[in-house]
């Protein structure tokens, strides 16, 4: 064990750090007549949004909202969506609100980031679906569009705020076998979700960690992280998989701020330890690419 490594119970925490990058993000609040319909809309909207490389954005449910927290007093879901620039955020939001929220029974769409440094159009672009029959209302200084649909009206905020967040925070969980590793990762994911955090992969967890580029072809941008693949342990020289480890999972974290990501990692780390992870580590690119570094050594204190 090197200098920064430590143990939390039976879990080894390596002296690694997660390396993260600035990304732009928006928060969309989806409401509906019931929790269930709000969740349907949010799931649909955040589907196929795992990796900015493959999906042009990363998005996830941030948290469910009580009726008391939403602009229209109905149950809601806050969704965070990250992309490389605000234009990208705007385009993705427009596609996803248009296809997944407007189409969903009883839904309405609101801005969850009113003080964002930039704004991107939502209702002001979707309104054309109203074919001239759309109408707008300004409530407390904010404009909303009413787009007539078969059910009644789809109410959509004019625009949403965009801010700069932090993407690419991560934790990697090693376990004795797939079941144990997954238990630890799931416990971590459950602990990590919360305000300001999006875990974009299915259930928050990714099993197919990747590396940049390929060992064999220059045209493939990303390939499997062979050094973390337990099955390759015996056939590659540079495997990171320690003896006794049968499975590895990663949780990728997009957050609204460095602090949010750090605290999220802290929660995940300790939850995974409590759940019996053999080892928890983090992925980076050597530290020269991302301006945000989250050394696991700084997460030793419990949340």
């Amino acid at each position: 064990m090197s200098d920064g490594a430590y143990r939390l119970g039976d879990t080894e925490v390596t002296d690694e750090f997660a390396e993260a990058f600035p990304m732009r993000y928006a928060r969309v609040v989806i409401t509906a007549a019931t929790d269930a319909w709000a969740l349907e809309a949010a799931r649909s909207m955040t589907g196929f949004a795992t990796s900015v490389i493959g999906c042009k954005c990363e998005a996830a449910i941030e948290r469910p909202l009580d009726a008391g927290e939403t602009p229209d007093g109905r149950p809601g879901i806050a969704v965070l969506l990250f992309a490389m620039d605000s234009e990208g955020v705007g385009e993705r939001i427009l596609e996803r609100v248009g296809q997944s929220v407007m189409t969903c029974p009883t839904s309405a769409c609101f801005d969850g980031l009113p003080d964002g440094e930039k704004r991107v159009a939502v209702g002001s672009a979707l309104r054309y679906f109203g074919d001239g029959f759309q109408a707008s209302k300004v409530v407390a200084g904010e404009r909303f569009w009413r787009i007539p649909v078969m059910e009644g009206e789809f109410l959509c905020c004019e625009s949403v705020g965009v801010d700069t967040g932090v993407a690419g925070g991560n934790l990697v969980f090693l376990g004795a076998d797939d079941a144990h590793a997954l238990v630890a990762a799931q416990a971590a994911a459950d602990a990590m979700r919360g305000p300001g955090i999006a875990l974009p992969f299915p259930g928050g967890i990714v099993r197919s960690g990747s590396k940049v580029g390929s060992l064999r072809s220059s045209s493939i941008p990303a390939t499997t992280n062979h050094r973390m693949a337990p099955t390759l342990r015996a056939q590659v020289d540079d495997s990171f998989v320690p003896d006794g480890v049968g499975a590895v999972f990663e949780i990728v974290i997009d957050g609204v701020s460095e602090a949010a990501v750090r605290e999220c990692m802290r929660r995940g780390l300790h939850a995974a330890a409590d759940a019996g992870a053999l080892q928890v580590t983090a992925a980076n690119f050597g530290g020269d690419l991302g301006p945000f570094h989250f050394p696991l050594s700084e997460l030793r204190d419990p949340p």
Partner: protein
Amino acid sequence: MTLTLTALTSPPARVDLSPLVPETTRGRSAIEVAGTAIRCGRDRVGVGELFAVSGYGTDELVLRGELGRIDRIGAGMRGGRLRVEGSCGDHVGARMTGGEIVIDGDAGAFAGAELRGGLVRIEGSAGASAGAGYPGTRAGMSGGEIVIAGDAGQEAGAAMRRGLVAIGGRAGDGAGLRMLAGTVIALRGVGAEAGMGNKRGSIVSGRPLRPLPGYARAVRYRPPALALQLRRLRELGLEVPDAMLTGAWTRWAGDRLELSRGEILIFDEEEVAAG
């Protein structure tokens, strides 16, 4: 201490108080303000002749006493806060662009007429033409909010283009006359002849109403935008029954003699009874 003007007695003629707003009194002493000339009838008089002035000018200005003949309070105001402890005359907050006026009592005619921005809040009732445009104006109120806890007189929100006129009580006849857009809500109902010539505005009546022939019944539904607005009314201090937030409203589209893009929304009490 906040600059406070207390009317000594009801003035002999109507007074135009528009020169005194927080931005003109800020940083001025009571003595300076008392020396300001204002118009009383056809005469110009010192503020001190009509009001006892105390305190020192800040972003807030307080008026007290019998103010029924004091017109144009806060007219053209651009910011700050003006509090009227009592009832006031006509044109309060007319053509104001920002800031907040609170009137504890009633307001006269043309309260918040041609409002551009800011908030006019009337705890009592308002006279005719609250939030309306002056005669001949094609585009009247273009922003801001007028909140009237009591009733409003005739033609509230006439010619308005944007903004909200929220009435806790009843609106008189002719609400939303020739309105271009914006919203007039009267929780206890709007009077007859509402929304004549309405282009794309919303008139919301908490009580049954027979719309003019230019309107056609569309549907009974729960308008999501209205829920948002009614919740805003609660924030602004009006008592909105839960049933209005959750219940059904009947939408009448019109005025078909204009653009036909406006609406009258009428609360459907039967729905409540059924529910």
